[in-house]
């Protein structure tokens, strides 16, 4: 208790005397940055899970092409989970002379278990009708709901009869929104929803019909998890158990990139803050040495000193972390406000996990920062009180290991991937080494400059010479801080712009599939009429992979479920003379004109990895009953989130033309041109138009909002960089104060001292600015090209501006720091040392 009260008392006094402010500020900053982003991503994750559940229509979905066993229902009942079933199948829907292919969904009572259906009483092509309302129930038996698109195509109004198989049923509402349609974009024919009890009477489901049976459950998360494990155990081949994590891949991908940006900027902030803490701890450690020497003199044992030290470290860490968590919590509400309206509902409340990570970060960092000095502080000799040169902080390199490990762990944690973490770690280590070497070199160079006659300049240079280690440490500290600031200035705009440019405003928002060869001219005429200039029409032949290198394909050997599904389904094979502009060649090469007609194949990278296929493999496809063997001649990377039509497998022209093909096109339909599209679809009723405009709006919305969120987090890096600059100044303040006092006593004028200090800091600032500008430019290039895969253009004017600003920033800040004690008289100065 004695150690605690001594530690607490001293801590309060140190705080009141202003000794701990920079240290505390940096600690709070590190924890705030970590927890605010932690709280925020936690909330976004759980919002996504909820949204995922809405998209599934429940917490868990079992689906299959055959009727599902009753055991699924019985088990759900036994576990007291809410459950319902749906059946989906395509069928022609008829009104009078008109007919249209529709996706029919027959739903059971209670559907959807999560989310809602929105219905209205009238058709509106654009936007939502004023009387749109959440549906209280599912379609009543004997009635159907239709999507506005289907109503337009068949000229239907509420109350009209529509033919579904052998039944004629009235339309009782227009289906405005069905959340559970989001994930399955390529099955989009217009929707007709009916009651599950009516399915049998339509006579539409017969042997060989393409039907998707689904069973949904929802309830307590843990119980759903147990149900999922059970269901996966009994699921037949061809049956699939899906949970919320599989939902919305395109939104997950956008958020994943955003998370990476957030992680990187948090990491920069936290590392800067840790370095700032370390620098700020040095004067504190020095003063503590004096304090403990006095305490040793008055009878304190080593054990007591150690206890006091540990208590103080713990209390500092705890107070800083708690404050950081509090500010982090407050800051994340800002982040959430910037990003919150991305989602259908308010973000859910954050969990406790970020709090835990913030607390651990704060405590561990405090311990790691004090660790290198622990032995010196504990063993400080009482004799130091008479001879100040005794018991100075010793520098044992191994003492810095915990700090280095913590920073490394920080990088891996925030980077989100081993590759990114390792790259950052290497870059940071290289940077430190380079900074140190350049600083040393720069300092030596300065000393070799011809001696100036200006006394202030001489004094300044002498200052650098007297403290080469301090000068190098300061340059390194300044460089790191400046580098982060310059890096942000250089890449922030570019990164965000490039990210948004990956989904430009004119990115395709409509797909047309199932175009027959004789309809191509008609489709192109539509493009001309609608003013769409750059739409391409791609051929597509469906084929099944049957053998690899002469061995029949055994899909059961794939342990990965996704690989099995990919191998089992029919591939959309296409052909092209040239590679699509947004593809990137990874291995092999694209075919020449002379190679057209050769049995070659270009594969998409992800598919080739999942199925274990490589360059030179011979793949045999079964296409409409005949076989075609081709050799993998290249592997491409495809940016799927550009929303352009792309293919896993592409062959050269001259191979597939004789097989039955359909065509696909993706294009950007400007607002208000829907009528032209509707006419096209009325002319060619077999065409299926997939509207991804709403989806893209959502992805673009996420990008925009997340851009604000990321800039917000950059603010932490900015603050941490400034804290680091300030800490580097404070680290040598006392020595400078003592020197200034001596010079003043010896008769130096204020002007001379200011000029000497400015000269010294101008040199330090210029070396630091040079190192920082070079380092930041190299880092910006590396991060852009290798980590985030966007092109990088060196911005010379910005780099020069950054260099000039940074060179001036350091002496200006130093002058602000020195100004206070320069006004004092030598006598006052004597007392403040």
């Amino acid at each position, binding site marked *: 208790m*004695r150690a605690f*009260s*001594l530690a607490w*008392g*001293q801590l309060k*006094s*140190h705080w*009141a*005397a202003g*000794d701990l402010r920079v240290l505390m500020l940096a600690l709070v900053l590190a924890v705030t940055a970590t927890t605010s982003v932690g709280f925020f991503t936690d909330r976004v994750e759980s919002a996504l899970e909820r949204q995922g559940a809405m998209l599934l229509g429940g917490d868990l979905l079992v689906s299959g092409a055959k009727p599902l066993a009753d055991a699924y229902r019985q088990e759900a009942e036994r576990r007291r989970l809410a459950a319902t079933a749906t059946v989906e199948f395509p069928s022609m829907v008829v009104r009078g002379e008109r007919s249209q292919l529709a996706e029919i969904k027959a739903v059971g009572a209670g559907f959807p278990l999560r989310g809602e259906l929105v219905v209205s009483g009238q058709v509106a092509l654009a936007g939502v009708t004023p009387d749109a309302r959440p549906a209280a129930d599912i379609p009543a038996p004997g009635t159907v709901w239709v999507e506005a698109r289907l109503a337009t195509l068949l000229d239907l109004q509420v109350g009209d009869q529509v033919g579904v198989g052998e039944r004629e049923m009235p339309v009782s509402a227009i289906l405005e929104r069905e959340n559970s349609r989001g994930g399955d974009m390529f099955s989009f024919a217009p929707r007709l929803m009916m009651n599950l009890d009516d399915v049998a009477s339509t006579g539409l489901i017969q042997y060989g019909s393409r039907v998707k049976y689904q069973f949904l459950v929802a309830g307590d998360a843990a119980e759903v998890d147990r149900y999922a494990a059970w269901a996966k155990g009994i699921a037949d081949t061809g049956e699939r158990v899906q949970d919320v994590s599989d939902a919305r891949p395109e939104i997950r991908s956008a958020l994943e990139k955003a998370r990476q940006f957030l992680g990187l900027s948090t990491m920069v902030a936290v590392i800067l803050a840790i370095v700032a803490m370390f620098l700020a701890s040095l004067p504190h450690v020095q*003063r503590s040495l*004096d*304090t403990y020497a*006095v*305490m*040793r*003199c*008055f*009878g*304190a*044992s*080593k*054990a*007591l000193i150690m206890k006091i030290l540990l208590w103080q470290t713990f209390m500092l860490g705890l107070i800083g972390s708690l404050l950081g968590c509090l500010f982090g919590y407050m800051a994340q509400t800002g982040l959430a406000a910037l990003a919150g309206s991305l989602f259908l509902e308010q973000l859910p409340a954050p969990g406790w996990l970020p709090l835990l990570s913030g607390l651990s970060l704060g405590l561990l960092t405090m311990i790691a920062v004090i660790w290198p000095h622990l032995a010196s502080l504990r063993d400080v*000799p*009482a*004799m130091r*009180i*008479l*001879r100040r040169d005794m018991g100075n902080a010793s520098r044992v390199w191994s003492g810095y290991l915990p700090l280095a490990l913590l920073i490394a762990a920080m990088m891996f944690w925030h980077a989100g991937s081993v590759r990114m973490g390792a790259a950052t770690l290497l870059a940071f280590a290289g940077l430190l080494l380079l900074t140190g070497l350049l600083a040393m070199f720069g300092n030596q160079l300065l000393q070799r400059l011809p001696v100036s006659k200006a006394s202030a300049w001489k004094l300044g240079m002498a200052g650098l010479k007297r403290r080469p280690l301090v000068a190098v440490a300061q340059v390194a500290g300044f460089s790191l801080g400046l580098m982060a600031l310059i890096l942000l200035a250089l890449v922030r705009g570019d990164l965000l712009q490039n990210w948004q440019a990956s989904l430009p405003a004119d990115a395709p928002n409509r797909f047309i599939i199932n175009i027959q060869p004789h309809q191509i001219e008609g489709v192109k005429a539509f493009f001309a009429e609608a003013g769409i200039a750059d739409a391409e029409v791609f051929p597509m032949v469906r084929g099944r992979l049957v053998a690899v290198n002469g061995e029949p394909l055994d899909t059961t050997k794939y342990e990965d479920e996704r690989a099995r599904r990919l191998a089992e389904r029919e591939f959309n094979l296409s052909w092209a003379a040239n590679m699509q502009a947004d593809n990137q060649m990874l291995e092999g090469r694209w075919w020449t004109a002379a190679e057209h007609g050769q049995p070659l194949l270009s594969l998409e990278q992800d598919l080739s990895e999942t199925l274990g296929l490589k360059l030179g493999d011979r793949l045999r496809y079964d296409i409409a009953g005949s076989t075609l063997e081709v050799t993998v001649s290249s592997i491409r990377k495809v940016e799927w989130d550009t929303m352009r039509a792309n293919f896993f497998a592409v062959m050269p022209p001259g191979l597939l033309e004789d097989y039955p093909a359909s065509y696909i096109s993706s294009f950007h339909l400007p607002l208000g041109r829907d009528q032209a599209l509707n006419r096209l679809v009325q002319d060619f009723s077999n065409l299926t138009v997939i509207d991804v405009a709403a989806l893209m709006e959502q992805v673009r919305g996420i990008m925009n909002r997340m851009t604000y969120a990321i800039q917000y987090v950059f603010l932490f890096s900015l603050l941490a960089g400034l804290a680091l600059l300030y800490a580097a100044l404070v680290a040598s303040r006392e020595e400078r104060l003592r020197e200034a006092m001596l010079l003043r006593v010896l008769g130096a004028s204020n002007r001379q001292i200011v000029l000497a200090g400015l000269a010294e800091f101008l040199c330090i600032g210029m070396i630091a600015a040079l190192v920082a500008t070079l380092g930041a430019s190299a880092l910006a290039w590396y991060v852009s090209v290798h980590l985030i895969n966007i092109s990088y253009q060196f911005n010379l004017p910005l780099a020069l501006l950054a260099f000039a600003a940074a060179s001036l920033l350091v002496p200006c800040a130093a002058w602000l720091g020195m100004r206070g004690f320069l006004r004092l008289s030598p006598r006052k100065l004597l*007392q*403040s040392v």
Partner: protein
Amino acid sequence: MAVEAIALNKHVSSSDARLTILEHLDLAVPHGERLAIVGRSGSGKSTLLGLLAGLDSPSSGKVLVDGIEISSLDEDGRAAVRGRKMGFVFQSFQLLPSLTALENVILPLQLAGNADAEALAKAALERVGLSQRLSHYPRQLSGGEQQRVAIARALAPKPAILFADEPTGNLDAATGQQIIELLFGLNAEDGTTLILVTHDNSMAAACQRRLQLNAGRLHEMHDEGVAA
């Protein structure tokens, strides 16, 4: 004896030479005595004080405090003896800059586990005439006031022996004189053994016994000069 040194030697080794600071030095200080050790700068006065107070350990020889051989104790053992029996006043005051006057005086009392630390510290500061300056930080006090706080801190735990190392060295003559009077007055009131290291002859003259440290050995001083 309050403090006893027997055949005390202290050498320091640098890279090229071994320097003898104290050589076969004997000293006995009875309880309640007021002893001055004088000598020129660099004669080893502070080193001797450090050894007698157990702040440092000798190269050879023994130091006994109240019969306890502190030179054979480890750092923690010596610290415990210091905490129980000794008080210190230094030339450079050695107040902790981040603690107020009161907190500086409380510190040794707290270290000794004294339950009444605050009251005793206040009383000690009142004795040195600083009851109005309790919450001032050292930088807000004059040199003389800082040394008074140091005296209060040294005497508050009622030590048996008080070590003072050039207590007026950083003060002007008039303030120095006031500090001497205060220190001696309080010492007389408490009956403490005082071992004072100084090069100020007038201050030494006020002590019962004076020893001069010269070439690593102590010589008795009388009013008329130095005797072997």
